[in-house]
């Protein structure tokens, strides 16, 4: 019987320190076995369970885009046992990976539509994956206008600065970066993500809004989007719930009649309103 609990091996190729407080690192991983690389087919919005053998496993959203299949990238914030242990690993070390897991962003449905991508802090990982996917060569023409709103507490806490610089240079993406308070040399927006979204006032016409960030940010972004005229079925959230097995068995991520790890983590607001109880912001 095939065993979905056994990870395949990946080697750390590079570790990128993302934030000035040194708490978030992006790990660039290469497949140890060729067959694993060939069979790992994913879409932005999915996640994987990363193992540090002896410490445990934790779920991370795919920060890389499938259009560059050589490596997988995951951004890790050092908080607990597994993330702490990951931060102590470096180039050449071996980790385990189980995935791809979850439903990912509905790329089919996004074809021909405008996209409003709203991310906060660390939750921007999968939106970076999605943005890079959309911007990749021929993919771009399949989608309409792309607006990205991304905020962090301070400029030094923004992730993926190389990507952000590259996106700034492009004319086919509208990038709005924001930090919570004024900062030396900061030329972008100042204010919380929901407020900045409101001030940009993107049109809901033919547009999907995709939101990923801390629960409080998502909670306050929702009414802004509704005020701007977005319908429930056009607002997508990528949710976090504590996850363990990632395959809908251990029960931990049960939310209403759904499992965040298999039915999500991407849910539309209309799906969420139909769920009983704690799924509501």
């Amino acid at each position, binding site marked *: 019987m095939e065993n979905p*609990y056994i990870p395949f091996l990946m080697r750390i190729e590079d570790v990128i320190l993302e934030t000035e407080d040194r708490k978030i690192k992006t790990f660039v991983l290469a497949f140890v076995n060729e067959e694993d690389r060939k069979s790992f087919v994913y879409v932005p919005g999915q996640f994987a369970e990363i193992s540090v053998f*002896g410490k445990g496993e934790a779920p991370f959203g795919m920060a890389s885009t499938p259009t560059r299949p050589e490596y997988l990238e995951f951004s890790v914030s050092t908080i607990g046992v597994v993330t702490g242990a990951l931060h102590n690993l470096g180039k050449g070390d071996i980790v385990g990976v189980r995935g791809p897991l979850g439903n990912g962003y509905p790329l089919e449905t996004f074809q021909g539509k405008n996209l409003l991508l709203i991310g906060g802090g660390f939750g921007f990982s999968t939106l970076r994956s999605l943005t890079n996917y959309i911007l990749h060569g021929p993919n771009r023409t399949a989608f309409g206008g792309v607006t990205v709103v991304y905020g962090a507490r301070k400029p030094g806490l923004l992730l993926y600065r190389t990507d952000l610089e590259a996106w700034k240079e492009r004319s086919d993406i509208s990038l709005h970066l924001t930090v919570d308070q004024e900062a030396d040399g900061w030329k972008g927006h100042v204010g919380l993500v929901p407020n900045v979204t409101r001030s940009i006032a993107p049109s809901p016409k033919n547009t999907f809004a995709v939101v990923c960030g801390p*629960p409080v940010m998502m909670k306050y972004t929702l009414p802004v989007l509704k005020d701007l005229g977005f319908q429930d079925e056009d607002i997508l959230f990528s949710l976090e719930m504590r996850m363990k097995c990632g395959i809908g068995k251990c029960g931990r991520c049960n939310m209403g009649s759904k499992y965040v790890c298999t039915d999500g983590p991407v849910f539309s607001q209309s799906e969420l309103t139909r769920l009983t*109880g704690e799924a509501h912001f």
Partner: protein
Amino acid sequence: MSLDNAKILEKDQLEGFLEGLLKDNIVFGPTSKGDLLLFDRVESANGISLGRGNTMNSAKDVLFPQTERLFAYRHGEAGVEIDGPSAVKKGFILFGVRPCDARGLILLDKVFGEPLQDPYYGEKRARTVIISMACETPDPKCFCLAIGGGPCSAEGSDLLFLDLGDQYLVKAGSPKGMDLLKNTVFKKANKEVLARADVVEKEAEESMNQAGMGRVGIGETIEKRLEALFNDPIWDDITESCLGCGICTYLCPTCHCFDILDEAGQSAGERIRIWDSCQFPLFTHQASGVNPRPSVKERFRQRIMHKLCYLPQNGNLPGCVGCGRCVTECPVNLDIREVIQKISAREAE
């Protein structure tokens, strides 16, 4: 029940039948340990304690052990080597299972079987035979009937034994069971025996209906009521005495939540899974520090919602088989039947 799928086993043949099973299989059944009845491995026919109430733990422990190794790993020169689980060789016989616990395994089969097969559960399940013992005299704590089961139901069992005093009626509940009935130790039944069995079953059900036993009124309505009352203050009242321990979930034949963790040595170790409970405070505690279920109230409510609302919403059997263990073993006697009655009676605000 008909003469095609039911036979007789004379009571004096039972020991021989069990010894036969023990020869080639690992047999589990109710065993007497101190003041308790426990569902555990038996080494001999007279190690089984049949026909006396139900065991404290359920048969789920065999297929879904509380602590189970997923794999071992070793740091070597080539990186990390992983050793998966070794194959189970012998068959498992779960003997003397009560109809409620057998029905619970139907739900576990679905959880662990779909959409991805859990190989740890699946391997054991594939070589497991379930031989149940009907409940001629249900206990006051039992309410299987109210939740779609029955004290003499063969649902989920391969064979069901029904005690008729001098002999057992043995009914097949599955193709595997039909095959087992071919064993020559089973004799042909007749219409008279079937009629006696019918009477036993009716009396068992009737005794559950008397004096409030088994009358819970669970049905589709409870699903809708629970949905409507999710934010109702009635939950404050219901959950006030709950201790937040894991007894209800651990003894429950259908509860299946687990955690995965690593046990590490110097250069080798193993990844194991262990039972976990939605009643424990850290179950939904997120890395960011947010916990969507911060108190006993939300966690107790989740258990009821998951069992009686969410699972049925997904077209599953409810996550309760009416075994009554949570009712008798809860240290503060929180009674799920009373919870259901309160919810049913409550007008949504």
